[in-house]
Structure formats: structure tokens, C-alpha cells
């Protein structure tokens, strides 16, 4: 990485060139009286500075982003014999250790054979040399570009020079680049997910993934074996996700909608002024906190309640049920679903509030003037008018529930079970993604790649829900604006 000193030098140099550009123009434009410069001095300074700073910064940025890979590739290009004899897996660990040695981190605890140990030190020295060289090259290139840029732009500073247009041109390019960042993000998401999933689907066929009923992601112990012993059927995950989402919506939809209706139609201004911020607080609580709450408060509470009920039923006509209830676990789907529902209440409420307030007052007036009560007006006029928007809000809440990670990771289980019983322990797509990627796994195994397959599925489904919801909201808004 480039040191702070280099960055500071670049900034300083840019500032100096800015000042120089300004001064040149001021000097030249002075004493010209009516024949004033096209642009103010600041623009000329900025013009020079841009030509100095931007190319140099671009080089440094490229070095920062890709330098590591280029260096690694160069180091690995010529391997000493001892290293070439290693298996690909061992080689990867070896080069990781080389990198750790260079950076000063503690390497892995593998005991290497003496010749490999020697090779490690040699490669480490080589790596240091290459990185130094690359760094020097980058700084030199940046310097050259900066100076060249200065020479080129300084010469053009003249009163007739339309510096402002050029600077504004740069600005437009910068602005456009920034909005391109948003597009690139989407492209990045889709591309990375698709690419890694493609590799996964080469090992596990898509229909087995999408329709298989057995989720048991194991990899073989030997590195050259494929996932012959694992099963990657994701249906239990989909069912688990669906179950928890359903429970969450059963909690969030009625409470969220009713509170939105009350706040929008009945509540007085002071009430609204107090309750709405409090609901915002509920919305702002991080999901990890909800997860903690679910795991350490709600889980034990529900479990002990059900166990107690079960104990009561033992020996009676519902003995079977009692036996089942006294054995339910902390991680039942009901717990994660209920807490997720609580988390979604303010989301549903605030979206619904916006939708309900968008219904024109003239409709309410028309109904009230006919002698309808406020609740009749709401039930028969306002809600039917708001229905598309409400449906969209609920779809967005469903999408949120499906994509939620922390609550389920901390409160739901790891067993993949295809069941709709809320008292059962299930696992979801997001939990599996976390579990698969937070172990000590090498990156390429089908096990870790399956996380990307799951991620792609999740992305596609939430995307579809969101697109539908946003289209509905757009059409609804057009109706009333």
C-alpha cells in the first residue's frame, strides 16, 4: 500500500499547483482593464490542479486496488522446485504464509520440511523485492504524470482560456462517474453472485439445488474429492425461511396496519408527536440486538412456557402432545418469527402511514358527509382506496423478512427440516449463508460456493418482490397525484 507520506505529498503538490495557476492568471489578467479574463483565477488554479492530481491519483488508486494481485502473481510465476512439488492446496497455504511473513502477521502453524522452509524465506524476500519495485514504479509513474500534467496545463493558463468550461467538464465527468458507481454496484452484485454460483452449479446441478429435499453440506476430507457425500437440496431452507417469514408477518401486519390506521385517522397531534418517534426508535434498533433479545429472553421464555404446559398435559388425554411440548427447544421457529415480527412492526406501520395519508381527504369527507362513522369510512372507503399501496408495503416487509440475517442466526437453529410447525427448529437461507462462510473453509469448495448459490436465490427473490412492490406504489401514486 502507498504510504501516507506519498498521499500527503500529492495533496501538497496539488495545492501548490492550484496556487501557481491562480497566480499566473491574476498576474496576466491584471492591467488588462476592460479585457477581463473569461474565468476567475480560482478556475484556472483548479484546472491546473485537476490535471496534476487526477492522473496521479488514478495511478495510485490502481496500484492500491490491483497491486497486491500483480505482486502475488509475479511471486508465484517462478516457483522453486520444492514449492512446485506441493499440492495446489498446500501451495495456497504456503503462499498465504509467504504473505503473512511479508506483512508481519503470524503465519499458520504448519511445520514445513526444511527445504520448503528455505523456499518460504526465499519467496518472502522475493515478494518484498517485487512489492517494493511495484511501489516505486507506481510512485514514479504518479510523479511523471503529475509533472507532465502540470506542464501541459500551466501553459494553457491565459486570460482567453475558458478554464471554467474545462473545470465544469471535469465536474460533469466526476458526477457521471459517481452515478455510475451505483450501476456498477448492481453489476458487481449480479456478476459476483452469478459467477460464483455458476461454479457451484457445475458441482451441484441447479435442479438438485432448487428442488432437493436434503440439505447436508459436507465436503470430502480429501481435497481432490468432489462433494459426493454432501447433499445440497435447498428446499428445507426455503421452507424454513417461508415459515419464519409467515410467523413474522402474522405478528407485524395486524399490529403495524392497525397502529398506522389509528395514528393516521384517530390520533390527536400530541399523541402522534409522541408515538411516531417512539416507533422510529423501534425501527432503529440494530437487528443484532433483536437477535440477542430472541436468544436470551424470548427463547427461554417460550420454551419454559411450552414445557410447563406440556408437563401439565402428561398423563392425561393429551399425553402425546404434552410429551412433545415438554421437549421443545429454545430455537423454535416461533421465537425467531415472533421477534422478527416485532422488528417489522415499525416498517409496516410507517409505510402504511404514508399510503393512508396519500388517500385524498375528499373521499373521507364524502363518506363522513353521508353519515358514515369514522371506522366505516376507514373500512369501506379509505382502506379499499389504499389497498394497492398496503399490498406493496406488505410485499416489502416480506422481502425484508426473507433477507433478515441476525435474528435468525442468533435465535433459529442449524437443522434443516422441511416443516411448517412453528414449534419445530428450522433453519433459513440466511443462516446457512452465515454458517457456511464463517468457518475456516477454503474458498473454492462446493460447501462455501453453495453460499453464493443461496445468495443468488435470495437476491433474485427479493428483487422480484421489490420490483413488484415498487411498481404497485408507482401506479398508486399516479392515481392520486
Amino acid at each position, binding site marked *: 500500500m502507498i504510504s501516507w507520506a506519498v498521499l500527503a505529498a500529492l495533496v501538497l503538490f496539488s495545492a501548490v499547483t492550484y496556487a501557481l495557476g491562480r497566480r499566473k492568471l491574476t498576474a496576466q489578467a491584471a492591467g488588462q482593464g476592460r479585457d477581463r479574463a473569461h474565468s476567475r483565477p480560482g478556475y484556472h488554479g483548479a484546472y491546473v490542479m485537476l490535471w496534476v492530481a487526477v492522473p496521479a491519483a488514478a495511478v495510485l488508486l490502481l496500484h492500491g486496488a490491483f497491486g497486491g494481485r500483480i505482486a502475488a502473481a509475479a511471486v508465484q510465476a517462478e516457483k522453486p522446485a520444492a514449492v512446485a512439488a506441493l499440492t495446489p492446496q498446500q501451495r495456497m497455504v504456503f503462499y498465504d504464509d509467504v504473505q503473512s511473513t511479508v506483512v508481519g502477521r503470524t503465519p499458520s502453524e504448519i511445520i514445513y520440511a526444511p527445504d520448503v522452509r528455505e523456499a518460504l524465506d526465499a519467496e518472502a524476500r522475493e515478494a518484498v523485492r517485487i512489492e517494493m519495485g511495484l511501489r516505486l514504479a507506481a510512485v514514479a509513474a504518479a510523479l511523471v504524470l503529475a509533472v507532465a500534467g502540470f506542464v501541459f496545463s500551466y501553459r494553457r493558463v491565459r486570460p482567453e482560456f475558458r478554464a471554467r468550461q474545462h473545470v465544469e467538464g471535469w465536474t*460533469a465527468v466526476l458526477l457521471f462517474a459517481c452515478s455510475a458507481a451505483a450501476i456498477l454496484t448492481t453489476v458487481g452484485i449480479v456478476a459476483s453472485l452469478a459467477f460464483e454460483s455458476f461454479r457451484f452449479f457445475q458441482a451441484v446441478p441447479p435442479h438438485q439445488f432448487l428442488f432437493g429435499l436434503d440439505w447436508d453440506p459436507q465436503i470430502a476430507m480429501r481435497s481432490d474429492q468432489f462433494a459426493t457425500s454432501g447433499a445440497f437440496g435447498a428446499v428445507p431452507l426455503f421452507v424454513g425461511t417461508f415459515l419464519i417469514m409467515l410467523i413474522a408477518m402474522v405478528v407485524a401486519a395486524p399490529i403495524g396496519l392497525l397502529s398506522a*390506521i389509528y395514528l393516521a385517522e384517530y390520533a390527536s397531534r400530541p399523541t402522534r408527536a409522541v*408515538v411516531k418517534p417512539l416507533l422510529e426508535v423501534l425501527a432503529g434498533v*440494530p437487528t443484532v440486538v433483536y437477535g440477542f433479545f430472541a*436468544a436470551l429472553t424470548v427463547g427461554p421464555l417460550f420454551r419454559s412456557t411450552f414445557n410447563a404446559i406440556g408437563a401439565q398435559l402428561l398423563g392425561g388425554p393429551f399425553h402425546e402432545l404434552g410429551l412433545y411440548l415438554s421437549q421443545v427447544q429454545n430455537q423454535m421457529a416461533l421465537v425467531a418469527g415472533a421477534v422478527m415480527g416485532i422488528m417489522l412492526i415499525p416498517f409496516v406501520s410507517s409505510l402504511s402511514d404514508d399510503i393512508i395519508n396519500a388517500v385524498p381527504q375528499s373521499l373521507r369527507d364524502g363518506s363522513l358527509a353521508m353519515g358514515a362513522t369514522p371506522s366505516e369510512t376507514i373500512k369501506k372507503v379509505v382502506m379499499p382506496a389504499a389497498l394497492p399501496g398496503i399490498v406493496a408495503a406488505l410485499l416489502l416487509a416480506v*422481502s425484508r423478512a426473507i433477507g433478515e440475517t441476525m435474528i435468525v442466526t442468533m435465535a433459529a437453529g442449524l437443522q434443516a427440516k422441511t416443516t411448517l410447525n412453528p414449534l419445530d427448529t428450522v433453519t433459513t437461507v440466511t443462516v446457512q449463508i452465515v454458517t457456511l462462510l464463517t468457518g475456516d473453509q477454503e474458498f473454492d469448495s462446493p460447501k462455501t460456493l453453495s453460499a453464493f448459490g443461496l445468495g443468488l436465490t435470495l437476491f433474485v427473490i427479493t428483487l422480484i418482490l421489490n420490483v413488484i412492490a415498487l411498481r404497485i406504489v408507482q401506479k398508486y401514486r399516479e392515481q392520486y397525484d
Partner: protein
Amino acid sequence: MTDAALPPAGAQPALQRSAIEARLKARRAREARFRWYGRLAITAALLFLAVLLGRIVSQGYTTFVDYRMSVPVYLDPARIDPTDPTGANYDLMVADAVLAKLGETDDALGTTSGKLMALLSTDLGFQLLDKVRADPRLIGQTVTVTGPVRADASLYFKGLVDASAAETDRKLDDRQIAWLEKLRSLGMVSSGFNTSFLTRSDSTEPEQAGVLGAVVGSALMLLVTGLLSVPIGVLAAVYLEEFAPKNRWTSIIEVNINNLAAVPSIVYGLLGLAVFINWLAVPRSSPLVGGLVLALMSLPTVIIATRSALKAVPPSIREAALGVGASRTQTVFHHVLPLAMPGVMTGAILSLAHALGETAPLLMVGMVSFVPGVPAGFTESATVLPVQVFIWENASERAFHERTAAAIMVLLVFMIVMNLAAILLRRRFERRW
């Protein structure tokens, strides 16, 4: 136009009135019930909030009081080698010192001292080691060290250990409890505000674990997120709102951004893993990579918030600026953007507050490892507060539970401060056009 054969209007007013009146009672009852449902819903939501926060505070506040022990320890020269102080067993020396105070001696197998060491934090031993390393002349003298009691002992002093339960069901047996009481009566135990929770980083021992490392990690990460997402987001919004021609491409971009804002955060984590860590080799578990991932996640929110702020500035401002000869760029940057600043800043602060609480994407980029120190730079291994909460929640020891709740309290305090700042900013600088 009207049909003459129709019965005259208001033909049976009396009959109609009684029909209406008959139904009125039921309708009024339905009205009252409906209102109650609304009130119930709001009460339920607020109750959940109260229970959630109440539980967290009640579980966590005990962390902020800790119990410390002061022990004068004789640094026996026979047991410490001045050339290699690390070889000595300082924990045993501390235990012997305490045993002496209790008037007991160690047995041949060392089980007594072992039992006692379960009550003493290894921090005492580390302090001695540091002192001896700094000044070897201390060997042979008696040095007093003060440090926290071990987690289970601390729980006992806070009254969280059930002394009446059967001995095998407890973490502390009767002998250990008797020792603790004696030490307390000897005045060797003091309690006070637990500053070490806020000044220390993570540790395997609960009584030595603190949130400083996580706080610094969060701060560094938020810095990266803010420096990336706010400028890029604001400038992107400026382009889309003020400069871009209104055609099919821009509406596609707009739909795109709205969708990005609703993508689950874990997908951004996957993106970070695939692109930043694997392709661009950004150091795993660093504030840099965490900041990059969360910057991408916050970008759509900042863009949307900035666009609303820009839309709220009336067109007359732009027209006035253009009218005096300003260029498009000058109009936007000298006139429109400054007026939209309060809304932009509010949106930026709120998106950063949201990023502070994010956990899932950071788990994907490796921030879930145990990080014992304070991260010194952007490329070092670090953790953030919400991930720290996640890590501690998985720990089985009871003492970690109270610390998890306390860490949540710290996190919530930061978030409340940021949200309040955003609200105050909005109130203070909002303009009503």
C-alpha cells in the same frame, strides 16, 4: 329528465328514521371496538419496545459495577529468574499471597491454590509480570496489585449466584464462597465503576473483556464508509437530479437505485467477499473492507435522501441563478446544494447510524474473529460493536451475557446520539418553502 312516475322523495321519513336509529347502536359499538383495536396495537408495539430495552438494561447495567481485589504479593526471588521474568508463575504467587491472608496453606497437590485461582483474575498475574519486566529491582519486594475478581466471583458479589442451590449445580462451591466472604470482611474487595469495560478490548476472560477495540474498529470503519458513501452518493444524486437528461436510461437508473436500497444486507457481504477480498485482495477483517462493503450498502440510501433534499429546493432558486448568468454547475453548487445541505446531512447521518448497527455483511468479510487489541490502522484486523455483541452472545459463560447486554447499551447510546444529532440538525436548519 326525471321520471315523473317516481314516488315523491322523503315519502316515509319516519319509517326510515327508525330503521336508521335501530342500527345505530351496533354501528357505534363497532366504532368503539375499532378504536380500541388501534389503541391496543399501538400499546402492544410500545410495550415490546419497553420490554426489549428494559431487558437489555436490566441485564447489562450490572457490568458497569465491578469488584476488585487488592493483594500485596511478595515477589519471591527464588521463584523469579531476573533474566527471564516470563517463566515465573505469577498467578500462583498471587494465590499464595491470598492464601496467606486467609490464614490457610496450600496442599501438596496444589488443589487449594487452584481453587483459589478460579476466583482471581489472570490480570493480576499479568500486572506483576509487566511490573517486573519494567523494573527488575522489584524482585524480592512486596508489590500490591489491584485487579478485577474473576467472572464467577464477580457474579457472586452482585448477588447473581444462588448460594442456596445444591453445590454441584453452582459454579462456586461452599469453600470458595466462604473465602470470598472472608476476603470481603478483610477489606480486600472493593467495588467501583467499571471503567475497564470501556477502556479495554476483547479478552477470553469475561472480567477483562471490554469494548474499546470494537469501538475503535467501528469508528475507523464508519470513517471509511462516510468518506466513500457520502461524497459519491451526494454527487451521484446531484447528477441524477440536476444534470441528467430525463430519458429511459435515467429512469432505469432510478429503479435500479430503489431496488439496491431494498437488497438484503447479507448480499452486500457476499459481494464484498467475492470482489474485495478475493478479487482485489483487500485485507480480510479490516475496517477498510468493512467500510467498503457498508459504503456500497449505504450508497443508495444517501442518493435517495439527497435527491429528496434537492427536489425540495424550489425551482425559482435555480431560475433566479440562471437568470443572472450562472452556469448550470455554478447554480447547483453555489445555490441549490447549500440550500439542500440540512436534508443531505440528515440523510447522511441517518445512513451512517444505520451502518453502525449492521452486522451480517461484516460477518461475511471476516470480522468475526477474536481481536484482542485495538486496531491501529485501516488494514489491521478489527471488529465492530455489533459483531462484538454477536461474538459474546455465543459465549456460554454467564458473565459474558451481562457484558453483551452492556455492549448493546453502548451501541444504543451511540445510535441515539447520532439520531438525535440528525433530528436536531433537521429542526435547526430546515426551511419551509
